[in-house]
C-alpha cells in the first residue's frame, strides 16, 4: 500500500496548497481574477522567469547555485537587440549567438566548479560581473527592437476559447518545462543530478560521471538564462544591459518555494513551475488590488521564502533524527 503523503512529497504538497490557496483567495477577492485570460497571462508575463528557474532548478538540485542568471538575461537581451537592430543580423542567427554565449559561460562556471572545487556562489558571482560588464560594454542605452520578425514573434499567439491566448513565450516556456521534466525523470543525466545532490562523494563511489554532469548542469542553466533573456527581449521589444537585475533572486525564490531544497537532492521541475505560478499570482494579485505597491511583491516573496526555508529545515532535522 503506497502512502500518498510521504516526507519527500511534503514540500511539493505544501507548495500546491499555497498555490491553490493564493489563487482562490485572490480569485474571491478580485473580480475577473478567475478568467482564463488572467491565468494564461501568468504564463506570458513570467515565461522568462520560468525558463530561468527551470535551468536553475538543476543547479540547485546538485547543491550548487547560479547567481549569474539575471545578468545573463541582460547580456543575451542586449546582444540580440544589438546584433539585430544595429548590425542588421538575421534574428535567428543573433539568438543562436546569444544561446552560445550562455552555453560558454555555463561551461566556464561548470569547469571551475567541477574541476577545481571552487564555491559555486563565488564563481557565478564572477559570472554576474562578467555578463553585466560585457552587456554594458555593448550598449549602456536600451536598444529598441524594430526588426519585423522579432515584432512578429512578440505579437504571435495562438487564440484559445474564453478570450485567452497562448503567446510564443508561453509556448517556449511550456516546451522547456516538458523537456526538463523528461530530462530530470527519465534520463541518466537527470538522475545523476539528484544523486549528486544527495551526496557528491557517494555519487563518485557509485561510478557516476560527476564532473561531466556538473558541467552540463551549469551549461544548461546558462543556456536557459540566455533563452530567458531572448524571451524577455521579445516580451519588452527591447534589449537592456541592466535588464534582469535581481531576477536571480526571483528565480531562486521560485525554485525554493517550489519545494527544492537549497542543499540539493530534493525537489522537482514541476515544483518550480508551481513556484513560478505562486510568484505570478502574488504579482497579479498586487496589481489587481491597486493600492498596494509593487515592492510588496518582494516582501511577500521574501516572507514566503523564509517560511519555506524554516519548513525545509524542520524536514531535514526530522529526517536526520529518523536515520540517526
Amino acid at each position, binding site marked *: 500500500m503506497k502512502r500518498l503523503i510521504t516526507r519527500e512529497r511534503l514540500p511539493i504538497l505544501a507548495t500546491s496548497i499555497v498555490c491553490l490557496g493564493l489563487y482562490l483567495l485572490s480569485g474571491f477577492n478580485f473580480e475577473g481574477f478567475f478568467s482564463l485570460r488572467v491565468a494564461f497571462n501568468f504564463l506570458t508575463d513570467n515565461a522568462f522567469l520560468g525558463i530561468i528557474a527551470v535551468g536553475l532548478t538543476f543547479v540547485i538540485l546538485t547543491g550548487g*547555485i547560479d547567481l549569474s542568471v539575471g545578468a545573463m538575461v541582460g547580456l543575451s537581451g542586449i546582444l540580440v537587440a544589438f546584433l539585430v537592430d544595429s548590425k542588421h543580423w538575421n534574428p535567428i542567427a543573433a539568438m543562436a549567438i546569444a544561446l552560445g554565449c550562455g552555453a560558454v559561460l555555463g561551461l566556464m562556471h561548470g569547469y571551475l566548479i567541477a574541476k577545481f572545487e571552487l564555491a559555486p556562489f*563565488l564563481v557565478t558571482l*564572477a559570472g554576474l560581473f*562578467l555578463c553585466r*560588464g560585457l552587456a*554594458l560594454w555593448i550598449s549602456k542605452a536600451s536598444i529598441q527592437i524594430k526588426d519585423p520578425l522579432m515584432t512578429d514573434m512578440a505579437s504571435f499567439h495562438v487564440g484559445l476559447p474564453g478570450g485567452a491566448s497562448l503567446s510564443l513565450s508561453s509556448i517556449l516556456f511550456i516546451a522547456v518545462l516538458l523537456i526538463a521534466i523528461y530530462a530530470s525523470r527519465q534520463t541518466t543525466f537527470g538522475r545523476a543530478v539528484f544523486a549528486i545532490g544527495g551526496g557528491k562523494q557517494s555519487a563518485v563511489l557509485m561510478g557516476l560521471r560527476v564532473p561531466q554532469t556538473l558541467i552540463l548542469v551549469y551549461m544548461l542553466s546558462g543556456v536557459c538564462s540566455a533563452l530567458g533573456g531572448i524571451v524577455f527581449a521579445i516580451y519588452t521589444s527591447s534589449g537592456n544591459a541592466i535588464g534582469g537585475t535581481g531576477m536571480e533572486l526571483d528565480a531562486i525564490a521560485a525554485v525554493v518555494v517550489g519545494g527544492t531544497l537549497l542543499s540539493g537532492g530534493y525537489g522537482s521541475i514541476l515544483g518550480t513551475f508551481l513556484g513560478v505560478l505562486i510568484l505570478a499570482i502574488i504579482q497579479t494579485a498586487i496589481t489587481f488590488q491597486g493600492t498596494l505597491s*509593487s515592492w510588496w511583491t*518582494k516582501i511577500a516573496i521574501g516572507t514566503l*521564502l523564509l517560511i519555506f526555508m524554516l519548513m525545509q*529545515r524542520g524536514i531535514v532535522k526530522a529526517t536526520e533524527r529518523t536515520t540517526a
Partner: protein
Amino acid sequence: MAIPLIVLAAILLFDLFFTPGFFSLEIRDGRLYGSLIDVVNRAAPVMLLSVGMTLVIATGGVDLSVGAVMAIVGATSACLIAKPSGSILSGIPVGTSIPAIIAVSLGVALICGLFNGVLVSFFSFQPIVATLLLMVAGRGLAQLLTDGQIIIFTNPGFASMGSGAWFGIPIPIWLAVGMFGLMGLLSRRTNLGLFVEAVGSNPVASQLSGINARTIKLAVYAICGICAGIAGLIGTADIKAADANNAGLYLELDAILAVAIGGTSMAGGRFTLAGSLIGALLMQTLATTIFARGITPEATLVLKALIVVGVCLFQSPRFQARFQHRQAGAQG
C-alpha cells in the same frame, strides 16, 4: 597581503607615469582635493563593508545582504530627515537631532545583522541562503519605507557625512578608517579575533575548547550589519537622497572581492583586515585608473570578474596541487 600590496603599488606606479595629475593634491576651502583622495573617498563604503565581511568570511560564512542593508538604512535615515507624509517611520520622535537619526538608522542595521546572525547560528541555515533572504526582501523593505519614491532631503549637517571634511580629509575616509581601527583593536585586543579564527578554522575543536560558536557568529553578522549601516549612511548623505533600488547595488560583490583579494580564505580561518582594506583600495584605484585612461568603465566589471576567479583559483587546493604537479613534472 603582500601580493595585493605589490599590485596596488604597480598600478600607482603606472599612474605616476601615465596618468597626469594623479598624485597632485591641492587644498581648497580647507579640504584636500586630488585623485588620490578621491580614490580613498570613493572606496570608503566598500572599505567599511569589507571590514564586516572579513569577520563574517573568517567564520566560514558570507553576507550577501549588505547591499540591501545599505538601502534599508539609507531609506530609514532619509525618511527620518525628510519626514515624507505617510511614512511608517513618522512615529519615531527623533526631531531634527542628527545623532538620534544616526542612532535609529544604525539600530535598524543592527537588527538586520542580528536577523542574519540568528538564521545562521540558531537555525543553522547555510550563510548564503540565510543572507539571500534579506538580499531579496531588503530592497522591498527599503521601498516600503520610502513608499517607492526617491526621497530627497536637504540637511547640511547630515549631508556632511558624505561630502564634508574634517581636518581637510573627507568624513567618509575618517569613518572607514575609524571602523577599521575599531575592529582592528576589538579583534586583536579582545579575544574576538582569536575566537573568530578558531571557529572558522576548526569548529569542532573550538566547541570542545569551550568557545560558543553561536554567539561568535551572531556577533560577526551584527558587526557586518553595522558596517553596512554606516556605509549606507555615507551613500545616502553623499547624494542627499535615498534610492531604494540602486543604493549599494552589487556592493556586496565588491566587498567579497576586496576580502578575497586581501588574502582572507573564503573557507574561513585566518583573516586580515588590513588586507581587505588594501583589496578595496586596489579595486577603486583600478577603476579610477581605467576611467582616467578613457577606457569604458564597464571594463572594470569584466576585470573584477577575472580577478575574483584568479584569486579563488590560487586559493584552491586543487589548483595548487595541479600546478605543483606540473612543476614537479617539469623538474623531474
